[in-house]
């Protein structure tokens, strides 16, 4: 049993709704547009590029997580796990900035 492949019923309800390729293509287009925007912002100097990275990249990452990595179709437990991970990362950032911002 330990080496067997889990059946769909062992995964929970086993009937996850597939969003269809249309959604994926739309998300992909949005990602391309955001990347273009990021490149554009980098032409207006370093601070503009940094703000672009800080603001646009999380949105892109969220789109990838939510649609391509199926977070949207997962149960609440997995969503909580992702939120805890993000929270941990934010705490690390905050502690790092307690040094960098006050040097």
């Amino acid at each position: 049993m330990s080496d067997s492949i889990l059946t769909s019923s062992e995964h929970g309800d086993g009937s996850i709704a597939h969003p269809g390729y249309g959604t994926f293509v739309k998300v992909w287009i949005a990602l391309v547009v955001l990347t273009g925007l990021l490149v554009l912002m980098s032409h207006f100097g370093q601070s503009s590029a940094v703000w672009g990275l800080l603001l646009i990249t999380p949105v892109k990452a969220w789109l990838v997580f939510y649609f391509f990595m199926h977070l949207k179709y997962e149960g609440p437990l997995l969503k909580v796990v992702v939120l805890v991970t993000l929270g941990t990362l934010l705490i690390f950032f905050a502690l790092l900035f307690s040094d960098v911002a006050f040097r």
Partner: protein
Amino acid sequence: MSAQDTPLPPSYLVDTGSRKGLLAWLTSTDHKRIGLLYLASMLTFFFVAVGIGLVMRLVQLTAFSHLITAETYNALFTVHGVIMVFLFVVPGLPAVFGNFFLPILIGAKDVAFPRLNLASWYFYMAGATVVITALFTGHGAPDTGWTFYVPFSLHTGTNVSLAVFGAFLLGFSSMLTGINFITTIHRLRAPGMHWFRMPLFCWATYSTAWIQLLATPILAITLVLVILERVFGIGIFDPTKGGDPLLYEHLFWIYSHPAVYIMILPAMGAITEILPTFAQRPIFGYKAIAFSSMAIAGVGSLVWAHHMFTSGLSQFAVMTFSLLTMIVAVPSAIKVFNWVSTLYKGSIDFQPPLLFALTFIFLFCIGGLTGVMLGALAVNVHVHDTYFVVGHFHYVMFGGTGMAFFAALLYWFPKMFGKMYSKKAIYASWFPIFIGFNMLYFTMLVLGVMGMPRRYFHHLPRFDTGHDIATVGSWILVLGLVMFFGALVHALFKGEKAEDNPWGGVTLEWTIPSPPPQENFQEIPTITTEAYHFPQEEIG
């Protein structure tokens, strides 16, 4: 046919598959065999690093100061640190006793991913091989210290890149073990084995596994950046290229401070198993110990910058991290309080594992309290990078994790090998270990307060006496270690057959034969009582 009527499967030490001998061991996915593979390889590395430490102490005697060059001394303390930290103490208890006993303690037949478990050991050996190769190839062994601090590590001509790559591979071993243990505890607990019925060693291993999983990738990426910077000259850490060397220190210690808890938490777990057995009463404050393990794992991940108080951090950061460091002492103190309370009014049976467990508590308290001293900003600035720090972390790592490792080995040895050692020989080895240990490391604390800097090849004449005492202490300590392991090796070959439950323990490993059969249990047990349920306590 009931489970009782079925003949017992052979011991895990017997080859029953198509492969025999060494090949059977190297391809085994049995968690117990993998635990022993770790034990053998880890102890080999441990003795190599002990030998290096002995040489380092020897050259601090004036008469032997020309035995090696200053460059070789730099390489030796680096190699001693890398081997002890990455090859012995970090994998230490989880890889050996976690692998061997975690599944048994929760009533499982193996870990959740047996093949991944074997792969972890291969990653460990690959990393160890690369690290050791780095010592003898390129332009000499790394001379950076085990911390690989930039910008020196970026510019030194020694073989840093290969050593760092070895540490990167070792990180994978740690992460995979962490994933395996978390999944095992979540998915493979026996029926009735609720979270709060698990032996506390499992809680400690569980907390450790989360740190292994979450913190190790940060070190892995940081080490890759060091290699990229050395090979391609990118400027992330190099200040001459606009990089920030303090960023390296932050990233390094974001892993390496929690790594201290990877080292100490399973040790605390093992002590928590030993004390109730030899006091013959349940552990005092089960939930407090379980939650304090999780609290140490959590808060311990937020204190890393206390290693950097003199590096040029902002004052705000220094205050923040000093405060957080004080907070992490609280859950550690809860554990010590509960251990001592467990012994209070217990029926104490003073067997060798208990002797080493009590030694752990005593030495760990010194290590912990000197840690609180170092967390206090004013003291830290005074003794930063002195022998005080070296003494402190040897009290925690060797006096703490090392003694707990020995205690756990003594406790579970009869179960692992089905043989009993000579208790007299172990008692005899304790004296030189304890005396030598304190002569060596307590003297370091004193030397540090007097101003002796760490990692210096030469020292001023006013430190001569302290160094002489420490060096003689190192000889006595090594004598004790030889006696200790000599007794265990003798027991392996000529020891008496051990009983199934020589100590009167009540956790699941004591319900199965010694050594355990393949797949541990004939039938998965159903758990109906708390973890430390001593029947005589009920009567009393």
